[in-house]
């Protein structure tokens, strides 16, 4: 029972903080998240069942490659199909546990392997926002719009089956309800939609494939930051020494809520360098703040429940039953009671939802898309950017011809990550970081180094163009 405590706490806290890790935090991968996000927005795809069956029984290939095909041909076709839609190896022949690369939204399904990350992400948007995202997803994930050979193949397979009445979210019992509690969604929605609109315009070309890969990568990054954002925001607004005026200045702003210094050189970076040390400390602080935020929200919830009724465990039971159902509710009540939540809710929280697991959840997920590391070993985690993630980040956070400085600012303002010296960084931010760094690093020097590292990497990767005298503009795919 103890093993499931994180998922139980998450279920209890869902209304306050929609994106949180559960016990299976090491399992979700980009394919799972993207799949479940699309499932949450559009619903279950009609092609998922038939395609999953293909991997179980090659006889099912008859409608696609003909009844007369020999065994070798069938196996070769399956291998080929695997390359296209299952290169990440996240589908195992059952529609219930299949997360394919969504070359068509008809492949989306309710695979629980996302441990609710993808589902939670889709739940943070308002109905209007979801409708806009759905519209764009339907364009990008539609193989009918492009004539490239990959889309043509998927279209042909899709055409083999008569698909009717598909992807109707309202008919789907697993469909996701909007929670609309996340401040994070306000920033992320604009970032997502702006880039997805450009992707939808290119959906009639092979760039559609590229877009799908980028979208899958970036959405995983969005979930990773989402794990930290809302809870950090709660932690920030709980600070006792902050007056109302200051609170208005910082509340809900990613740059203030997170403000994480990233290591912008080539990953993984030398652990002894000042910038790596600062980025390690900065991420650690953000994770600790987030965990603290979840704890504050938890304690507040328990306190409120107790204040409504002085019946001890009964008030906790009422709280749990109002939010969690079935066996999970029973297990949660038991877990809370055993952890001594009535005596010390904060300590109980730390037992049931340990900081170390919360931290590992961020690191594991980010590592799967090249956003943080090192994935293995004992080295402290920091945010860095493998080339594949950098490519996605540039696509989502810039337009072709934007200044490099503008890109740095957007990363700071929209995602709360410091990838250089943002023009809007203020003395409070610098003071906070210097207090964090202590004697280990000079923050000003680190920011300048991060700025130049990032610029050079973008230029080297062809994601930015450097003019003479160091003036640098972003080079983003123009479809």
């Amino acid at each position, binding site marked *: 029972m103890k093993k499931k405590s994180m998922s139980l706490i998450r279920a209890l806290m869902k209304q306050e903080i929609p994106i949180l890790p559960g016990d299976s935090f090491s399992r979700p991968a980009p394919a799972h998240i993207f799949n479940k996000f699309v499932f949450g927005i559009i619903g279950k795809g009609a092609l998922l069942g038939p395609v999953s069956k293909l991997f179980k029984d090659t006889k099912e290939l008859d409608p696609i490659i003909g009844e007369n095909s020999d065994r070798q*041909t069938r196996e070769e*076709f399956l291998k080929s199909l695997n390359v296209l839609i299952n290169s990440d190896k*996240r589908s195992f022949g059952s529609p219930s546990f299949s997360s394919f*690369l969504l070359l068509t939204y008809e492949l989306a399904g309710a695979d629980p392997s996302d441990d609710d990350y993808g589902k939670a992400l889709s739940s943070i948007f308002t109905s209007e926002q979801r409708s806009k995202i759905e519209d764009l997803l339907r364009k990008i994930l539609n193989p009918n719009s492009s004539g490239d050979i990959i889309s*043509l193949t998927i279209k042909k397979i899709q055409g083999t089956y008569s698909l009717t009445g598909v992807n109707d979210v309202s008919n789907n019992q697993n469909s996701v309800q909007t929670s609309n509690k996340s401040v994070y969604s306000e920033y992320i929605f604009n970032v997502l939609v702006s880039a997805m609109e450009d992707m939808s315009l290119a959906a009639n*070309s092979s760039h559609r494939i*590229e877009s799908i*890969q980028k979208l899958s990568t970036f959405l995983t990054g969005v979930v990773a930051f989402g794990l930290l954002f809302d809870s950090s925001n709660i932690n920030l607004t709980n600070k006792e020494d902050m007056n109302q005026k200051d609170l208005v200045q910082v509340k809900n702003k990613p740059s203030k809520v997170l403000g994480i210094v990233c290591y912008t050189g080539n990953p993984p970076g030398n652990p002894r360098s000042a910038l790596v040390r600062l980025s390690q400390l900065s991420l650690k602080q953000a994770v600790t703040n987030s965990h603290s935020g979840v704890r504050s929200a938890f304690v507040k919830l328990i306190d409120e429940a107790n204040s409504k009724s002085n019946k001890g465990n009964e008030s906790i039971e009422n709280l749990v039953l109002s939010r969690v159902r079935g066996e999970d509710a029973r297990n949660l009540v038991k877990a809370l009671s055993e952890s001594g939540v009535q005596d010390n809710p904060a300590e109980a929280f730390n037992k049931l939802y340990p900081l170390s697991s919360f931290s590992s959840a961020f690191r594991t997920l980010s590592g799967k898309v090249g956003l943080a590391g090192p994935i293995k070993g004992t080295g402290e985690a920091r945010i860095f950017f493998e080339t594949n993630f950098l490519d996605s980040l540039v696509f989502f956070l810039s337009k072709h011809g934007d200044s490099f400085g503008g890109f740095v600012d957007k990363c700071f303002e929209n995602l709360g990550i410091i990838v250089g010296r943002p023009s809007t960084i203020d003395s409070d931010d610098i003071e906070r970081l210097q207090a964090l760094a202590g004697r280990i690093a000079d923050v000003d020097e680190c920011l300048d180094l991060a700025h130049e590292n990032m610029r050079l990497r973008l230029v080297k990767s062809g994601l930015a163009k450097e003019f003479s*005298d160091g*003036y640098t503009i972003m080079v983003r795919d123009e479809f």
Partner: protein
Amino acid sequence: MNDSLVSEALKFLRSSKTTESLSAELASALYVPFILENKEKLETVIAQAVKNGRNVIVAGSAGGGKTMLVNQIISELEKYQVRLNILDELDIENFQIVENSVTVVRDLTAVNSETATKIIRKKSGSFIIAANEGALMDNVFDGYFDRVIRDLHSLQTGKLPSNEDQPIVIDMASVDPLSNAIQTLLSNKILHQAAELFELQSGTKNSPRILALKQLHNSDVSLAISQLITSTLGPGEVTFRELWNFIADLLLGGQNDVSPPTSVWFWRLFNGETSISELIAKTLKPQFLALPNESFALFTGDIEGLNLSKMTKELWLHPGVIPMDVRNVDIRNDLITWLRIQYVLIEQLASTKSKSIFVGSFSTELNDKVVKQYDKVALIQALNGYFRRKEAAENDSSILELWIHFMVERRQDRGFGLASLGSVSAGLLELNSSQSIANLKGFNLKGSRLFLQPVLENRIFASGLEVNSGLFKAISRGRATSLADRDNDDIDLAIKKFYFNISNTATLERRDVLNILNTPHEENAREYSWKIGNSISKLSN
């Protein structure tokens, strides 16, 4: 030789190497003219055009040779006795516009916008302005230079703007200083004398540094070394300032009194403290030089046993000690490498013109084929080989296969399955170099950047794959199997973007065939082809 000139050259080599401060005599002695495709000198042609009333913008990066070129144009104009009005950056307040003169601005960023605007709008007389690209984009010029920026971008993609009503635009960032000047500079007498003066000032004569420099007096040696350097570095990667730092380090860097002497040019070529040396060492990896037949003789100091050519015998430099007599392992290893490098450079490359045997030779050979001979088929075969994880062979297909991977998640292995977006025949691709001069009909100077592009009337920048030493290095190594091996991630991304772009702009072969490649190991590589028609059917390979 003029002693003061040699002294000034030494001072220049020891300084930050800005040509602004050079005397006209030394500048002229060190200047290597750019030769246009019609064999005329660039500065002569530009001076003639200015004399005929044309305006000139010389753009480029810091240390890119703008000032050096402008000074040469000024010298030419002085020969024609053209009236010049040269702006002194240190006395801008007293600058006056002089009508019917050629106004020269060596650095636009040093000029306030008011003065600059007056110069570009003056009614009579032309101007020569040297500027960084960023300065030209400054809003204060009210878009005057927008056209220049467009011309610069066109040049960078290989187009040749030719509107003679517009200023002549010279893109120095596009000019390759290396292939143009390296051989001349390696054997430049004034520079060698500057190195001798450097030694004399510390009371040394006939040091290993000076004795080794005599090797570069030999034209076979200087040619072989310059070819090796240009083949290694690839196009478009070196500025004049980097080149001068490299030359200065070759001539003055290192120490004579250590074992082996680190002051000799052939040691510094790989071990110098410059970005160029670093790149050369990284590509060629001299520490892995394998000379099975010569190593023993080099180790025992049996130079006779090496059967050296006459030329090498004359030029051979003894390190002062024999490796087998040295006990310290590090010094002994350095000595062996020192001797091997000298042997390969002087005997194999320069004297007997043998094939380079450096580890990175495949990369340099491919560089030679593609950059010097414009052999696009060799590049296409090498790109295909990169994805197929096999060395390219001459009889391989000349069709470019647009392989892409479908992995999103970062796992330990890079994934072995690839699908092709299609394939493009070599006839529909071309290697295009950037250009350096706009709006001067009949006079072309190829730029240093090279792109593999689809043959299109209206080429767009994004559609080209930049061909540089990084690409050659990645291709020669093959696609990494592990994600922890990140060295070529940038190149992998560039190729992927190129393939996506080209699949939408070029005419693809067999648009109805899906090709899948599985390359767990070279010997187990499998390829499957499927015809996507009314039904899906297997095609035999």
